């Protein structure tokens, strides 16, 4: 994979990755969901994992969250090779996962949700005051805009719920936080709030793994982008050095995708149209029909085809 080599390890001379995956593979029956995945996450770094549907992002998250153990390969946490057989083991290591559907209990208030499963007890009874105080200090650190921690989570907005879910992941003092699509289904302002939150996690020195379909979010907060394609690594970029188009081409598989096919078809047809003026109307109709056929139908510039053919070795 030529693209990966282009990325230097970020100041690896002094820092050790907090989480390091080597050759991780996972199959479900006949389907190889992940093949030889390598990934490093450093403290105080936001790594975005991007990829199309079916690229293996969720499987990777589930391996790290302890939902499914990997078939082969090693996971190192703080330099130690670890097994993550259960969600509890993942949490105990210091990996906090915020799932896409938040997993909050709507009928409980914010404090109860934050400390769910980790309640502070004083003898047999719950220490509500301690929990409420710690909730406030945590939410203040994250500059969260929650008016009261004694209201049911059901009455919070989407962004506030996401904030509670992320804040909850920090209760166990994790070193890595995995956010699965944290901005999906959020409004503009709420998305900005969550992105601020991600930056604050980085400031706290946590390694953040961000799964997102939203390139704007990725480019806004991530330090590195790891691209998965059909269950394999397909590029690892520093966000500062990479263009939107390069990421998209790595996600979709560069030269062979609906975008480039459309671009080349367009080129061929327009050439044909030039040669044969009568065919112009039919080719225009096809050009309009083409975008709806593919998932990536965003109006990409034609220079997406300019990507090196060498990236296609693992197509």
């Amino acid at each position: 994979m030529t693209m990966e080599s282009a990325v230097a390890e970020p100041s690896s001379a002094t820092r050790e990755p907090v989480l390091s995956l080597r050759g991780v593979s996972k199959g479900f029956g006949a389907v190889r969901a992940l093949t030889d995945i390598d990934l490093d996450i450093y403290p105080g770094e936001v790594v975005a994992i991007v990829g199309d549907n079916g690229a293996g992002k969720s499987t990777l998250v589930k391996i790290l969250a302890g939902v499914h153990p990997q078939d082969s390969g090693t996971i190192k946490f703080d330099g130690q090779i670890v097994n993550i057989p259960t969600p509890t083991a993942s949490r105990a290591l210091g990996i906090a996962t915020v799932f896409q559907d938040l997993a909050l209990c709507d009928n409980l208030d914010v404090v109860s949700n934050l400390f769910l499963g980790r309640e502070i007890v004083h003898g047999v009874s719950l220490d509500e005051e301690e929990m409420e105080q710690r909730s406030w200090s945590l939410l203040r650190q994250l500059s969260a805009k929650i008016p009261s921690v004694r209201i049911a989570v059901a009455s919070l907005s989407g962004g506030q719920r996401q904030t509670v879910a992320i804040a909850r992941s920090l209760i166990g003092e994790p070193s890595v936080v995995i956010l699965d699509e944290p901005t999906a289904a959020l409004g503009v302002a709420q998305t900005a709030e969550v992105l601020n939150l991600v930056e604050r996690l980085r400031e706290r020195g946590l390694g953040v793994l961000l799964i997102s379909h939203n390139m704007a979010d990725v480019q806004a907060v991530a330090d590195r982008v790891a691209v998965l394609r059909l269950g394999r690594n397909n590029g690892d970029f520093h966000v500062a050095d990479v263009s939107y188009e390069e990421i998209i081409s790595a996600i979709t598989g560069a030269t062979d995708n609906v975008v480039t096919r459309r671009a080349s078809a367009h080129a061929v047809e327009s050439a044909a149209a030039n040669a044969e003026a009568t065919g112009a109307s039919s080719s225009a109709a096809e050009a309009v029909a083409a975008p709806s056929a593919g998932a990536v139908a965003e109006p990409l510039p034609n220079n997406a085809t300019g990507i090196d053919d060498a990236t296609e070795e693992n197509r």
Partner: protein
Amino acid sequence: MTNTSVETPAERAADLQDERLVRTEGVRGAVLAFRQRVRGGDLGSLPVVIGLIVICIIFQVLNPNFLSANNLVNLTLQCAAVGTISIGIVLVLLLGQIDLSVGSVSGLAAAILGVGLTQLKWPVALAIIVALLVGAAIGYLYGLLFTRFGVPSFVITLAGLLAFLGLQLKILGPNGSINLPYDSWIVQFATSSFLPPWAAYALAVIAAGALFFSDVMRARRRRKAGLSTGALSVTLIKAIALLVVLLLAVAYLATDRGLGASFLLFVLLVIIMNFFLTRTRWGRSVFAVGGSVEAARRAGIKVNRIYITVFILCSSFAALGGLLASARLTSASLSSGGGDTNLNAIAAAVIGGTSLFGGRGSAYSALLGILVIQSISSGLTLLNLDSSIRYMITGAVLLLAVIIDSLSRRSRASHGQA
């Protein structure tokens, strides 16, 4: 509270710093907050308390004996057995499950008590322990079936209803009815044990004092943690109101036989379960599982353990209720736990304000609900109306309670608090 209009945000308690919060203070604030809650659809036990008052007024007008001390003492004694069963129903409803077999399990416990005391000559304590253990074992079985095979609790307990009714008949044998020895202490306890007035008064004072001190201690802890506290005047008013109500109730009941021991046991069980539900990790887990099983599981709660403990508690409460019922009637028979026991226990929990859909409710709904049901039953009996009317009216009240539950749910949704 040090809230004055000139303080800076940093001086406010940690939970009052958000400028969007409408701040309320003192007694007026408490009243305002209460009104706001009710309007937002968080009715709590308000509808059932109002309903109880309306029922009392109606029956008192129709028959002046309804609120007589004698009738009220009978009422409390009738509440104890089915009310105890209803505590268990509240627990399973909080998980969003149901137990339809509580009637059969209570009948089975009664049969074990009867046969144990009369035919096997067991000491009373042994018979009680065996009956309770059988109840717990049944709950454990339900829990295992539910968590291992994922069979809906509705079906499991429907099967249990039939199976344990059969077991009850089997244990009772061909006679079908066993009279309990009248001098055994459990019968004495359920029929003719009443607290001496001084003890009842002392208990009322202790209850009000406990409420006051727990509130004061909580306020102190909150102040120490830098959080806002309610006004002392509100605490004081609450405690004094409770004291006055309890003293009046005790004094009025004392003009007849007084406070029944079995009713006291039931109320104590309600208070204990309320503590476990609201102040322990287990209780918090019960509400979490009732709200969202998946969220609870991901939070690391051992969901299966919660289901199993709740089913065990429910069947054990059912067994205990069956023991109290048979002791009060001094007999264990084919009809023990039959008839409307099952449905009254479930209706009491729902009428009391526990949601059928899980995650909302309180142990006190067993107490309030059973008071409503027994008041209706007792009032209609006083009016010489037969059970056909009683069933219909109880059914209508249950329907009303569920409608209020649904309406308040809709109100919560429209106020963004569903």
